[in-house]
């Protein structure tokens, strides 16, 4: 058992625990914080996998911007917990069993049937360097130019949409 493996396992447990915490915590704020923890852990994985740029994006965009926005909305709405629900009593057990089956399926699949046999290489210096980043930028603005532009349009649309939805000046139909 190598050190990376140990680190991986520990971080995995943290990530899973954070995810479960997010899902099960009563308080929405806790959920959001658990999710931030999870995102951070995952960012570490990205580093381990030799993707520093993505790791940084993860921290800044996800854990930073997006989650802050979430927290902001949670605070704004002021709803921190809901009373236990009477509706859909069978929803939970069913969800658990489906989730369990899905996990079993995927683990079974990955272990026994479809092995992408390769081993993850250690994050060497070369990968996590500026050269690497430059390389990536080149790819992105050459090969992936179109998606990039589409993404920009997408963000614009999202912005317009958000404004349309929250702009109250022009009241719609009664």
């Amino acid at each position, binding site marked *: 058992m190598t050190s990376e493996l140990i680190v991986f396992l520990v971080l995995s447990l943290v990530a899973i625990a954070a995810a479960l915490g997010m899902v099960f915590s009563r308080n929405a704020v806790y959920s959001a914080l658990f999710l931030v923890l999870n995102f951070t852990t995952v960012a570490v994985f990205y580093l381990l996998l030799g993707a520093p740029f993505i790791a940084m994006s993860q921290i800044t965009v996800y854990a930073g911007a997006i989650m802050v926005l979430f927290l902001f909305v949670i605070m704004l709405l002021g709803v921190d917990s809901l009373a236990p629900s009477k509706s859909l009593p069978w929803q939970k057990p069913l969800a658990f069993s489906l989730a369990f089956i899905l996990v079993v399926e995927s683990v079974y699949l990955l272990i026994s049937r479809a092995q992408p046999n390769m081993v993850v290489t250690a994050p060497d210096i070369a990968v996590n360097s500026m050269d690497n980043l430059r390389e990536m930028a080149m790819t992105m603005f050459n090969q992936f130019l179109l998606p990039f532009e589409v993404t920009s*349009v997408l963000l614009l649309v999202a912005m317009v949409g958000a404004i349309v939805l929250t702009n109250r000046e022009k009241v*719609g139909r009664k």
Partner: protein
Amino acid sequence: MTQLDFYTILPLTVLTVWACVLLLADLFIPKDRKGITAFLSALGLAVTLGLTITQVGHENTGFNNMVVVDGFAAFINILLLASGLLGIALAYGYIKRMGLERGEYYILMLFSLVGMMLMAQASDLIIVFLALELLSIPLYVLAAFARPNLQSEEAGVKYFLLGAFSTGFVVYGIALIYGATGTTSLSGIFFAASNGTSSLLLTIGAALLLVGFGFKVAAVPFHMWTPDVYQGSPTAVSAFMSSGAKIAGFAALLRVFATAFPSIAIDITAILWVLAALTMIVGNISAISQTNIKRMLAYSSIAHAGYILMAFVPYGNKEVLPISIAAGLFYLVSYAVANFGAWSVVIALEKADGKGLEISDFAGLARKYPALAIAMTVFMLSFIGFPPTLGLVGKFYLFRAVIAGGYTGLAIIGGVTSLVSAYYYLRVVVNMYMHEGDPTIENEEWLNFTIATTAIATVALSFVPQWLFVMASTAVLRLL
């Protein structure tokens, strides 16, 4: 980046730029004259349509094989743009009447259309993914456009949450496909898959992707948002969604599966078979007990997704596929035309206070507005697949293709469920003709134009369907 690259996305670019310009221009258009935005949007669509037509017959890839221009894309794009035009026409009076008149309505539609068109042209899963989002996000907003109307907002939230949920599956599916093949390019996947890499991972990735598309086209069991969203959204949005999103979804489904995944056809075919059968059965049966016309049309759109899915079932069979897909496209056209017509009639009857949406509100329509009733009857007959409408020809082609593919059982299910469908479609006709009532309608010229155009097209095209079918076949031949 070459000229050629830009040529491939020329119509898209024009439309996007036009939408951005309108976004700004809209600020200067006075509140009571938002019709100008509508006309300008339509103008943009018309120009784009012209440009797209010039692309017919060309075959190019662009942006490092991210997008393609081919007959298939052109066919779908023309269909989408036509839908867009109809969508504007039927919305023009409606949003005014409902007090929703805001320029963003049309602009969001244009953006959504950009996403749809991009979807048809995509030849890389990245583009597919982004296009899917680009078409969806404006639709989420449009669904909730009638805020603070609770139903509309609820529709928006439901659509959004479930859409995002299905996006999760799409992302994970693409990840698995990438894991199996090392690429996201459709042709790359095809080559990798042909070389026999880890096909199960690929299959599962493809299946998850199918879930995403299934959600967009409202295939059972991914359909459940549809009735709620169609009912809650402003009717004009439902009309646009039920045609445009469906066309785009099917276009992507076809493009992705036919070009990237022929090697795993056996498994996917089995899944598609079940999906198609379930969709037809559940869609039609659920529609029976509906009393709200919007919900009924929603279930009807689910059911028709099932029929179109049938065309995809034999997608691994190289001999049958061309006619099968062509039949599917043909059916898509016949569905879209009748669908727009039917929704337009619903719009004509809808009142500003949200009344007039029960099927019983159609009672007596034939006596008071015979032309409208005849048009609605034509649409209903087309949905059932009855002469003399395009729907019959569509079903005929479709069933023939399915039988030729060796799926007679599926064809029989299709037949029996269309029998079931006759039951609820006829109820509309019964209400219009055989019950007494005193309906009032909104007489809006563009709406009437939409109804008349679609009704005439539904009947007239059924007598000369050949050119349309030839077009569809040619489109498919280029693709395959």
